[in-house]
């Protein structure tokens, strides 16, 4: 599998999810993908599909309604994967810390590899964070990393790990 590792480093695809941020970091990610900062010179493409992504860019302090989506997206990204928390509120809760509908930072739910500071993070910082993430991606193996907080459980069905239940809804009542 050494063969693929080389390419993974050369063309990391990112998945971006807004877990309740103010948009500031999201537009800075867009600006970083734009021509002035040109994140694409590292081979980075913004993709909407978690199954094809290597790097998970998260912004926002995790609101109650985005918790299951965050864990669900995290579990869908194939190993090895790197999580980058963009912005102060993503790392610690920031200005939203203690507000009634937020969790204080995404590291309560999923393991974070790189924290990018700033409110809002500037494109330079985001690029720096992504380059650090690439170095971490190289050293990672295909071992499954579990999220810290699960809504369901990892089961073994016929000698295979099933992660289908990992991000079950908080309440069974589907709405």
């Amino acid at each position, binding site marked *: 599998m050494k063969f693929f590792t080389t390419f993974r480093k050369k063309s990391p695809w990112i998945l971006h999810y807004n877990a309740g*941020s103010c948009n500031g*970091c999201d*537009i800075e990610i867009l600006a970083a993908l734009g021509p002035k900062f040109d994140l694409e010179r590292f081979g980075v493409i913004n993709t*909407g599909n978690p199954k094809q992504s290597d790097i998970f860019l998260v912004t926002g302090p995790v609101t109650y309604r985005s918790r299951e989506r965050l864990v669900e997206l995290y579990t869908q990204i194939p190993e090895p994967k790197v999580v980058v928390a963009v912005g102060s509120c993503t790392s610690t809760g920031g200005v939203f810390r203690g*507000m009634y509908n937020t969790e204080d930072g995404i590291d309560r739910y999923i393991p974070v590899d790189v924290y990018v500071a700033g409110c809002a993070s500037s494109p330079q910082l985001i690029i720096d964070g992504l380059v650090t993430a690439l170095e971490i991606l190289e050293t990672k193996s295909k071992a499954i990393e579990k999220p810290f907080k699960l809504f369901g459980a990892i089961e073994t069905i016929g000698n295979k790990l099933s992660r289908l239940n990992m991000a079950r809804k908080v309440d069974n009542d589907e709405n």
Partner: protein
Amino acid sequence: MKKTIQIPLGSQHISLLEPIRFKFECENETIIGVDADVGFVHRGVELACTRSFEFKQVGYVVARVCGLCAITHSLAYTLAAEKLLGYVANDRIKYLRMLMVELDRIHSHLLCLAHTAENAGFEALFMQIMGDRELVMEVQEAISGNRVQFDYICIGGVNRDLTSELCDLVRKNLMILSEKVEVLIGLFDNNWSLSLKYKGIGVLSLEDAYTYNALGPLARASGLATDVRAETSDFPYEALGYTMIVESTGDIHARNFVRLREIVNSIAMCRNIVDNLPMGEIQEKVKGKPKGEEIVRIEAPRGELFYLVRGNGANILERVRIKTPTFSGIPAMMEVFKGSQYADAPAILASFDPCMSCTAK
């Protein structure tokens, strides 16, 4: 047998910047019903403004409601607080605040246009507009110290002054930008593939705009002449060359054109502000505690932003009500989706320029 199919869009999707979930009820390719879940980014800013933060800090907290129009949020709150404290800002402060709001409008509109182009499948135009947008971001960074979330406005004035070198930078960058916007206007008007995606698609009629209380560029594209800049007297907009931009067709093309022509108008206003900047202090001491009730309306890039602030003479306010443009625009937006093709949905959605962080607070 069921005749319709349900297609979900979101909450995570490549064409969405922010989480919002739509449930489209489709009959073949035509959307006949739509349901939206907008509460993904609800954080609880309104309660925090009246519990955890003092009134002097709230201006910086409400800026974090939305990163794109942060300056209008802090301006609206600050104006309300200043009215409660009985303070009237001098002309220099007013002009500097207007300058930042108009610069913010330019960059927000450019981002929306870029996003609309991307969702119509025109990646190169997205890159071109994002490149042009950096001219404004550069100016904002030079004036305020940060690219977005510049906490520029405080109670009693602004936090940084505009020096003559900065004035030159504003003039230079806006000069380059106005030429680029002319090119964009030609492109949006004449490009064949953009016309196919934009003209006659996603139409909001004038009648519906009145019924559903559309606002901002969405309303002005349908011919409803409403703009808070013309309906409030807090700032001397008319003296600086403000004109209301109204289109009549109400489709995506008209909304793009309202935005493009507003950028041109805003550039002219910014130039006028920089050329006619009055002298004076940039920050004054304001004493007292807010007491009473005050409402303030400001034209954010997406429409009318409304603040209601009530204080009882204490350090902590009693109520801060934030009504954001997208929040009241949602019923009109849902109406536009009905009857259009599912394949056009991302482009129509981007043309509204929805801001979910604003909506859910």
